[in-house]
Every structure is written in structure tokens, then in C-alpha cells.
């Protein structure tokens, strides 16, 4: 049984002559432990596809099955639970909460679920993310690369089924980009973490085990 299945997924904007098909009839199956890169130029629909998988942007047509469950058939509270526990998204602009420190930002999804923090796992993650010395820092006291590592930590802490990364290095210099990519690769290797990453950079896409290319809303 596959982890994720996209069935005829479409996202359209506008209507009639202004109709834009951002994503058009995408079918895809993802197995557990895969590291997939979705490669495409700007406007190819890769981010929109990712948002639909991430349960934040409802498709116009089609279904997203996670562990055989149609995620858009769930009610809002179950979708929230899904976002808290099963799917994590890493954004290009980090989207950290400015008033929370590094540890608090990382453990935020657990706090929202009122779950206890596994201290051992947290320490392990902080080590993996090289943030041991930055625990009490606020986001504005961190570099871009460090902020993105916090965001990855936040994604990993719940041990989700899938991590979705939307241009995770888009805002970083090459050194920090490599660091982030290595962390993602190691997370995939160590924790068997399924990762789907969106990028327009062919070099970065090579870190993934499988590359899917998109053009004009379709997989080519």
C-alpha cells in the first residue's frame, strides 16, 4: 500500500477566458521513505501541487489520499490534526513565530496537540540541525540558514508521514543551502522520513532519490 496517492489532481483559477490551469490532472504515487524532488520552472504549478498535498489548498478536481484516506473529505478539525501530526511543511520564508525561541518554535506542533516532548528526540534533532547552542535564541537573532534549520526541526519533531519542502533553500546562500539539503538527506536516511521537495534548481534536485519534472501544470 502506497503512502500517498494523487488522483487526477487539478487546481484552476479564474473562469472562462481568464481560466488558468495551475495544476492539470496530476496522478502520482509516493511510497514510504521516498525522497522526491519536484523540479520545474517558475509557474509550472509545483508549489500549488505541494500545497494541495499539504492540506492547505483545496484542489478544484481530484483527490489526495494519505494512507488511503482522502484528506479533503475530512472535516476541519481532522485536517488540522493531519497538519499537526502527519504532514509538515517547510517554507521558503521559514514562517517562524517571532516571539518564540528556537526550542519553542520546534515543539510548537506538539504543544498544539498537547503532546509531551520526547526530550531525547529533541536533543538528537538539535544536534542534527546544529542548533544546540541556539536553543534560547529568538528567530531575529538567527541567520537565514539557522532559521530554516529551525523550520526543518519543527517539521521533523512530530515524526510526520511526509515532509513537504517548498523551495527550502530559495532564500539562502550556497553554503547554507548545502547544509539544509544535507540535513534533509540525513533525515531521510536516518529516520526513513518521506520528503517531497519543490525546487527549480537541478543541482539541488539531485539530492533526491526520485525527480519529477513539471511543466504547465503537468508531470512530464
Amino acid at each position, binding site marked *: 500500500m502506497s503512502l500517498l496517492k494523487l488522483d487526477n489532481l487539478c487546481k484552476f483559477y479564474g473562469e472562462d477566458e481568464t481560466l488558468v490551469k495551475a495544476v492539470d490532472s496530476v496522478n502520482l504515487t509516493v511510497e514510504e521513505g521516498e525522497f522526491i524532488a519536484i523540479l520545474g520552472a517558475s509557474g509550472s504549478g509545483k508549489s500549488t501541487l505541494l500545497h494541495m498535498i499539504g492540506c492547505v489548498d483545496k484542489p478544484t478536481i481530484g483527490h489526495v489520499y494519505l494512507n488511503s484516506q482522502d484528506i479533503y473529505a475530512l472535516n476541519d478539525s481532522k485536517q488540522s490534526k493531519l497538519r499537526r501530526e502527519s504532514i509538515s511543511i517547510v517554507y521558503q*520564508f521559514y514562517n517562524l513565530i517571532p516571539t518564540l525561541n528556537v526550542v519553542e518554535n520546534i515543539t510548537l506542533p506538539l504543544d498544539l496537540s498537547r503532546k509531551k516532548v520526547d526530550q531525547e528526540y529533541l536533543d538528537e534533532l538539535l544536534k542534527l540541525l546544529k542548533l544546540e547552542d541556539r536553543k534560547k535564541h529568538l528567530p531575529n537573532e538567527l541567520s537565514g540558514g539557522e532559521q530554516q534549520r529551525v523550520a526543518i526541526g519543527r517539521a521533523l519533531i512530530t515524526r510526520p508521514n511526509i515532509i513537504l519542502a517548498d523551495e527550502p533553500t530559495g532564500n539562502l546562500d550556497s553554503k547554507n543551502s548545502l547544509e539544509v539539503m544535507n540535513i534533509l538527506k540525513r533525515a531521510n536516511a536516518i529516520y526513513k522520513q518521506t520528503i517531497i521537495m519543490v525546487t527549480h534548481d537541478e543541482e539541488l534536485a539531485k539530492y533526491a532519490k526520485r525527480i519529477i519534472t513539471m511543466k504547465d501544470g503537468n508531470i512530464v
Partner: protein
Amino acid sequence: MKILNKLTYDYLKLNKKKCIATLVSIILITVLLFSVGIFVSTIRKTALDAVIAEDGTKHVLFSEQDYSNYSILNSDENIKSIEITCLIDIINDELSIESIDDSLWDSISISKGRIPNNTNEIVISSAYASTYNLDVSFFIGEKEVVGIYNNSTLKNDLYTAFTKEVDYNNRTVNFYVTYKNIFNIYDKIYNTADNLRLSYSIVMGHKSYAHTWVNSSYLALLGQFANNNIKLGVYALIFFVLFITSLFCILIVRNSFTINLVERKKQFATLRSIGASKAQIFKMVIIEAFMLSIIAIPIGIILSIIFFNLIILVFNNILENIIEPLSIYYYPSLIIISLLFIIFTIFTSAFVPALKASKISPISGIKPVYNLKKSREKYPLINKLFGPIGVLAYKNTKRNKNKFNSSIISMSISIILFITFSFLINNIVIASEDVLLEDFDISINIPDDSVLYNEILSIPEIDEVITYKSAYLYYDNGKFPEEDMDSLLLVGVDNNYYQEHYDNGIYVINAPDDINEFVLYDNEYNYVYTVSGFRESSDMLEFIHINSPVMVVDFDTYNTILTNYSYDYVWSREYNIGINTDKPEVFDRYMEEIINDFPELDINYINYAYYNYEARQILLAIKFVCYTIIGAIAILSISAMFNSLNTNIITREKEFAMLRSMGLSKKDLNKLLIYEGIFLGIKTLIISLIISIILIFGMGKLIKLLNISSLKNLIFPTKYVIIAIVILIALIFLVIMYSKNKIKNNNIVDAIKNENI
């Protein structure tokens, strides 16, 4: 949940400046609502004390009843207690001796001596004692005075002495009745009166039974009214005032919450995208309201207590030596109700923004979601009047409908509140002036004597004088030319005054509605005069204070009618001189001389100077309280409008920076803001003025229902409408200047980058 509380707390701590607007709003509405609570509490307590001191707490008195009717009352299951008084003797043709139930001694405050032990002992009123120089242990006839009372809430006069209860059998007695429950008490009273077979007539729209006195003032303060129209009017007015006040408060606070939330849209979206549920976001906003309330409500309560104490201090100062100093009273129930109302208002205000925040979609934090209305119209008129910047401004107001509408709504509510309250309060002030102030400083009533008249008019300090004569003409049954009438007050005004104020016709004021022709007959009852018209008393003779028909003529016609025309008898012929003067105090001396010079004439002289002084002080106190209320509402309105306008502008920093980065000059940006202000102002004015006029019309109808004679001629608050317009215009420009400076200092790049998380 701990983390969400922390997030809210951190936000409040880090954004103190932004939160101050919300705090101030909550403090202001707490001051307003709590002050209303204390005000109502104090007024009710003061009024209730006064009424109880005057009339007691018995609900109704059935007087001059046969004692055998006691069984009828006793079997009435609605009645809680029946207390009896009974006239048992009259001494010296004037002192009534009333025997009363032992329980009724509570209604009589004995200032000296004791309560009688038998029917040979009596207590007399202090007024009676001082008139006849009586004291305790004196005898009046065979009765010994054992005590003196200075006040009684029983329906007796000063010529009443009380004694111990007797056997009431076969006597005529008075029943003081108290009911178990005051709900619908008038129906119960009517029912009892019917059982006692008392007759009734309809007076002012409700039943008035013979031998029945209802403690209506006391019952009214407990919310019971005989006249359903009055009841409806009072409740509708209370509901209306509460409704509009709470709506106003809710909008003010809601606006403040919305400001904070708009700025945190991205934070909520991020939280949603990492799994926060709608309920969690909703709770976050409610917790924020709770945290702010904990700080703001106590401050508001303390401020309102200080504020109210100051008002009472000034009020008591103005009315020093005129009334007993008013003291503030806090009815626990009313205070709790106002507190609950404040909390309800705050949480209702937070509810909608919280709901909106919880509905923020996770995707809106990741990519911008524009929800703008497309408009392809070109607006040629606006283009012609204001140029392309004007069109841009107009399109902004149309496209950002939600944002602008919320400003328009909150500003309109503020203006509506200000205008309608001004209307109410202004009319109360005018009515009080009408009721309290005497028409003249000096009023002299003399027999028809020209020597005396000239003597009075020669007093040097007279500024203005109006003389008029009056007489009631009575007609025997059925002889009066108009049906249902048997008398007419004829008023003659001096010829010069009459010609100055009215053309030479004959007018009838206060004519019954259905009369459209009025004629006067000669002594053979032949048709002679037709009146020229009918008028309201207020625009004819302000000093006539009766509601029955009055025929107003000049002196010559007055004399002709009295000497040549037919009536069966004349009563109460008076010659009245009304004088206005700056020096009323000197009149006493002049008039004393005149009265001594004409010892045989009956001269009735009243100097209203001191009374008018008191009345003016009372008016000043009323005005002070009323205008303080208007002032407080104005401050609240202005702060609400400022908040709303300012939010509208500061939440659009990024948009303005974008326009600036595309080459819009600072001057053009100013223009844009000013034009937006103009369009906003015009829309607000149109909406608020139309609604205000409708509401004023509705309130006018309600006040008519109340049938308060002094509130008959309601005045439209033109002055306050103009004030509201001026304040609105000034405020729009002030806010534009204020926000413009704020925006001007922003770096374009920073503003564009500002993610508002």
C-alpha cells in the same frame, strides 16, 4: 493551550502601543457602561427614597369602605396585607381623630413623645402643634396629646391626629392594601376594586376608580404603569437607549480587536498551516480579550467611580442649599448587571474578529490571497472633479469594500449616537426650562382698577410688562354653543401687545381636535362672532398653562364680551400683571407701599425671583449632567472614529509603499488619502444623517406615546448635526495628517518587506 496563551501574552507585551488602542476602547466603554449603572442606581435610589418618604410602600388605598368589605379583601388571594384606618371623631370641627392599626405606626414618624396606648391618647402633627402652640401632655377636648409626628406616609392632612386601633365593626374605614406580587399589579387592583363594586371612569387612557388611591409613583419606580402606552414608551426608550449604546460599544471594541488581528493574519495562517485548529485560533483571540479585560475593566471602574463622584460633587455644589446633597448609591444588582453587560459587550466584540481569525486559511500565510472586486468602470464625473488620483481613491473605496465599510459603519454609529442622544437630552433640557422657570419674575394679580394699575406700572425697575385679564364664562347645561363644553376661559391681552403679536382676529387655543369652527353668541344666543383660527398655546400665549379651550382677544373685545354677551355666570375674574426685571429684590419694598396705599383692594403679589434663582440652579445642574453625558459620548465617538480611520490607513502601509515605489509622489499620496477621506466622509454623512432622522422621528413618536405635555414640541438638534459634521470633517483630516506623517517616515523597502507576522 499553554503555548497559545504564551503567544497571546507575548504579542500583547511586544505590541504595547498597538494594544493601547484596544485597552483605551475597553476602558472607555467600561467607564460609559459602569457610569450608566451607577447613574441609574443613584437616580433610582434617590427617587425611591423620596417616593417612599412621601407615599410609603402600601400599594393602594380603598377609602371610605364599609368594614364588612374586609372579608372581600381577605379572600383575595393576590393580597398580602390589609391595614386599616378609621375616622372615629372630629374635634373642634377641624381635628380628625383617626384610629389606625398597630402595624401602621411604622408609617408615622413621631418626633416627640410616644405612641398612644388607648383611644383617649392622640398624636398630632407638628404643623398643628405649632399653629396652636400645643405640646405633649396638652389636652384637646378630652384627648391627651402624647406625641407629635412630623411626617406620615398615610393619606391624611395636617389636621389629623392618630390614636390606637378600635373595633372597626359597623364603621366606615380605609383599607391600605399591599399585594403579594407587583407583576401586573394594576390588573389586580382593578380586580379588587371591581370586587368592592367601585365605579370607575377612564382618565388619560386608564381606569380611575372612585375611593381608590394608587401609589403610582412607587409602582412606576418598580416598573409598573397603569397606562400601557406609557409602559410601552418607557420600555421602548430604555430598550432603544440600551440597544444603541451596546451596539456602539461593541463596534468600538470590535474595531480595536480587528486592528490587532489584521496585523497578525500571517501569524494565524502559519499556526493554521502547522496544525492549529480553528477552535484554537478562536480561543487565542478570546484569551486576548480576557487578558485585556483584566487590565482594562478595573481601570475603567475606578475611572468611572472618580468621574461619577466628580459629577455628583459639581452637581451638589450647584444645588447647595436647594436640595439635599445627592449621594452615590451602588445597587448591588444594578452594579452586577452593568459588570455583566460590560463583559458581555467585550466578548461579543471579540467574537466576530475571533471567528474571522479562526477562518483564516492556512494558504493565506504562504501566498497572498487577493479578494478584490474587479471594476471596469471609469467614473468620468470623479475623473473630471478630482482627476486620476481621485479615480484611484474612489476605486480603492469600492474595491476594499470590507475595510471601508467597517470604517463607515463605526463612524456612522458614532454620529447617530451623538445626534440621537443630543436630540433626547436637548429636548429634556428645553422641557425642564419650560417646566421649572416661571414666565415672569414678578406676578401681580389685582382687581380691575386703573388707579392701582397705573401705580404699579410706575415702579421704575420694570423692564417688560404684559397685562392680561381672564374670566371663566359658565353656561348652564346644554346652553353652550359647542357640544360637550360648559365653560370657556376668556383671556384679554392688552391692546398694544395683542396687535403686536397677533393680527386683529379672535383666536381659540387648545380647541378640541374635532372643532373647526367656533362661534360666540349674543345674549339671545344668536350667532355673532366666528373665530379667526385655532392655535397651539405655545405660539399664542406662553403664560397660559391650561389645557382646556381658551379664547384670546384684546382688552376692548374682552370688555365687550363680558358686558354685552350671554353666559350664565362668570367665575374667577382676574387682572394679571406679569413683570420682568433685572432687580426683582427691590419690588418687595415698592409693592409693600402700594399694598398699604390700597388697603381695601385684594392684591395678590408673588415675587418669583428666588424661586427662579433656584429653578435656574436646578436647570444648570440638569444641563451640567446632560452635557457631560453628551461630552462623554462625543469623546467616545471621536476615539472610535479615530481608531477606525487610523486602522484603515496604517494597515495599508505596504500598499502605500508599493504605490510610492511605483513613482507616486508624496503630494499625490496625500491627495489620494484626502480624496479617500472625502468619499468616506460623504458616504458616512449620508448614511448617518438618514438613519438619525429616521430614529429621531421614531423617538418623537415614542415620546408622543408617553404623553408628556412638556415634551410636546420636540426640537430637531440642528446645532448638534452641524457639530457632528464639523467633527467628522476635522477628524478625517486630522487622521490623514497623523497617519500621513507616520507613513512618510517609513522606508519604502522596509514597508514592502514587512510581513506583519
